[in-house]
């Protein structure tokens, strides 16, 4: 369990880090909770690691003009314990609480998790339901992408060599929005077999906003647009929820592994979507 040799750099500033990454051979070390186990198993053998831990500007959480900006190096514990997030974006704080275990949450970061793009990671369900954006920076340029466009496929993101994910941007939650994250846990690893995040708002007795993000089910986390459309404008009755939940996995190719077959995952996606919608609607009305 000894990784291959590598060169190690620990820059003090973002500029230094971007210069080190510009060559394209270096891999970013954030919390290391996914990368270090991969290196120990020699499934990954980067030549050069750039450790971001000293760049203090990448750890901040702040709110301005209706948005919350989360530094990519903020840990899951930082998110779970942040009064700002708990009050202003509770769905994301809730997602952070479900990740791994205490020790993993103390080191693992939101930017690292998203960049690793594990198809069963917890964050994307909530972040997709929130309409999150991510900021990618390279020496001399930056761009902002919708999370949907960043998460390309299993373990694959839209970040190009030399580009660094620096910030995750989510909207401040409007009052009376009901949110819930429901997760079917694989008990040994803590990963989601199925994870569903729901956000709903009602006005005049009708659902005025419905967002559903799913993780663990397919090669990449996704938003269930058909189910959202079914709920929009409805009263959110038990029958509405049942019919909407039935749509979350109807058109997808589900993952299969030793823990759950594809058809079981699709079935559980519907069950957990219904639970998340019931819980979110109970908060919204």
């Amino acid at each position, binding site marked *: *369990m000894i990784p291959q040799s*590598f060169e*190690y750099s620990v820059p003090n500033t973002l500029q230094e880090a971007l210069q080190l990454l510009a060559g394209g051979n270096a891999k970013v070390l954030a919390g290391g909770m996914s990368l270090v186990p991969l290196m*120990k198993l020699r499934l990954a053998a980067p030549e050069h690691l750039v450790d971001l831990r000293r760049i203090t500007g990448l750890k901040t959480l702040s709110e301005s003009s209706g948005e919350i900006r989360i530094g990519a190096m903020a840990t899951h514990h930082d998110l779970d314990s942040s009064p700002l997030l708990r009050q202003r974006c509770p769905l994301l704080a809730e997602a952070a609480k479900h990740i791994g275990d205490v*020790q993993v949450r*103390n080191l693992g970061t939101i930017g690292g998790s998203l960049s690793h793009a594990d198809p069963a990671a917890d964050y994307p369900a909530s972040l997709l339901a929130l309409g999150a954006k991510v900021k990618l920076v390279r020496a001399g340029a930056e761009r902002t992408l919708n999370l949907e466009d960043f998460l390309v496929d299993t373990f694959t993101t839209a970040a190009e060599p030399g580009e660094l994910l620096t910030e995750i941007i989510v909207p401040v939650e409007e009052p009376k929005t009901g949110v819930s994250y429901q997760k079917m846990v694989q008990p040994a690893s803590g990963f989601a077999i199925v994870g569903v995040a729901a956000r709903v708002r009602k006005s005049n007795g009708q659902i005025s906003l419905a967002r559903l993000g799913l993780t663990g089910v397919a090669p990449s986390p996704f938003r269930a647009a058909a189910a959202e459309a079914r709920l929009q404008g409805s009263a959110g009755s038990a029958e509405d929820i049942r019919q909407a939940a039935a749509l979350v996995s109807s058109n997808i190719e589900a993952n299969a592994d030793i823990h759950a077959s594809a058809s079981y995952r699709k079935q559980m996606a519907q069950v957990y979507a219904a639970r998340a919608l019931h819980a979110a609607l109970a908060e919204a009305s």
Partner: protein
Amino acid sequence: MKRLISVTINGKQRTDEVEPRLLLIHYLRDVVGLTGSHIGCETSLCGACTVELDGKAVKSCTMFAVQVDGCRLLTIEGLVSNGKYHPLQEAFWNEHGLQCGFCTPGMIVACKQLLERTPVPTEEEIRHGIEGNLCRCTGYQHIVNAVKAASAKMGI
């Protein structure tokens, strides 16, 4: 290429030259000579290697020693102060919170984190707080009892 790291371990500062790929647990056990923290699963699941890094419980098998340059570490050996056991160590002894003892050093460091964040935890909070540590002997009940006893003692 080896790098120089400077670390404060259990209150004592030291400087060592290490290869970047040296894992923190191997540094602690083989270089520093602190063998209290154990290597269990080596895959970040069992928690036997748990140590405190700048006040936070971490799994030392899933970090490189170079990542703790400039940091403070606390291992099970550092919990004794002035020849007296930490209340958690006493409670694990009194409540039979261990049988073989392999998980105990990591378990106690994780429990210390738990009591710092939640001084009077419920049973559910205790079980949630030690979710990153496996014990194959006790069935956890005696560990839960030990944490409750330590919590009561530390609250006095």
